[in-house]
């Protein structure tokens, strides 16, 4: 690994960490395709490294959210029951899934993430800063546990946090305020990613020389992102996120169609 590559990995980690803090996503949705497309890492190694980065984002951001009591720790722990099962099983299965099938599934996930964020960006165009969390009582646990199981499976298969699945589910199905749902999802994705990261690590798919600079970048980006978050309108961050995910999906489709992936 050259110094130039390490510096580029730090920059990638910074960008993903900042997105994580600003847009409430784990960053895996950006890291996995960038590592596969531009660093030419085999897809399974890209996923393994991305899972470690997701743990970094979750650990850095949720320590702050838990202390501020924005995270619903009880709800997070309950949903972790099913999301970790999904993640662990999917991580074992991933070794037997064709690389091309994983790449196609990733393209679908990227496009879903972009569409999900488009909805959020549209809703946030007239946003007001809400500091008070309204009273709520999470309900419909069976639906929440089912979606968390699916999100965990996506995490184990694709190296993402799965926040783009968990947040809308908690918000729409369980009646959890969006701010709490985002913080709780960030809290959960660390354990979800850890459940599958151990399996990728055991298979030798966590490339340490790639993971070390990337994770250092993720920590830096998360800290800077959390600091500047109140000064930046989320619509700009979300628009940039949509652009990046659509670009990466396009690149992956191109590589798949030319047989280069």
């Amino acid at each position, binding site marked *: *690994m050259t*110094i130039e590559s*390490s510096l580029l990995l730090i920059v990638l980690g910074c960008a993903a960490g900042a997105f994580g803090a600003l847009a409430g996503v784990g960053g895996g949705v950006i890291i996995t395709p960038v590592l596969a497309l531009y660093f030419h890492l085999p897809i399974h190694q890209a996923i393994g490294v991305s899972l*470690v980065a997701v*743990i*970094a984002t*979750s*650990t*850095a951001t*949720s*320590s*702050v959210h*838990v*202390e501020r*009591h924005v995270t*619903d*720790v*009880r709800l997070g*722990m*309950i949903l*972790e*029951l099913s999301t*970790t*099962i999904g*993640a*662990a099983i999917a*991580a*074992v299965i991933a070794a037997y899934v064709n690389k091309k099938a994983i790449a196609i599934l990733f393209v679908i996930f990227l496009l879903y993430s972009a569409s999900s964020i488009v909805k959020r960006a549209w809703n946030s165009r007239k946003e007001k800063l809400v500091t008070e969390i309204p*009273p*709520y*009582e*999470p309900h419909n646990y069976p639906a929440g546990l089912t979606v968390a199981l699916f999100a965990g499976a996506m995490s184990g298969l694709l190296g993402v946090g799965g926040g783009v699945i968990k947040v809308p589910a908690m918000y729409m199905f369980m009646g959890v305020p969006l701010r709490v749902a985002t913080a709780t999802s960030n809290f959960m994705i*660390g*354990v979800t*990613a*850890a*459940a*599958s*990261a*151990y*399996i*990728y*690590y*055991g*298979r*030798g798919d*966590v490339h*340490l*020389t790639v*993971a*070390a*600079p990337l*994770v*250092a970048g993720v*920590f830096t980006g998360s800290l800077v992102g959390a600091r500047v978050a109140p000064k930046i309108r989320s619509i700009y961050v979300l628009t940039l996120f949509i652009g990046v995910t659509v670009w990466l999906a396009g690149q992956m489709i191109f590589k798949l169609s030319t047989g280069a992936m």
Partner: protein
Amino acid sequence: MAEQTPHPSERWIALTLRLGAYGSFAVLIIAMLLAVAGQTRAAEVTSRIGVLVLMATPTLRIITAIFMYVSARDKKMAIVATGVLAIVIISSVVGLNLHG
């Protein structure tokens, strides 16, 4: 709203996460400095330690939560947290066996 009242001991969970984050960050910075200094072998070992500390942090925060719920006599949540810990331990054992 009783379900959402934050438990005062949640600060221990936040502290565990913070220690894991800053601890692994510091170790990884040392690993990169060693790599720049040309100490390839030492850099690799240090990177491994940093990544393993980071990967262990979510597990440590589950253990912290179990202690928190047991001390609060919250039997239901203690069982839930123990269940999550069991799943993560099973996956880590499977992972280590793959490594072996």
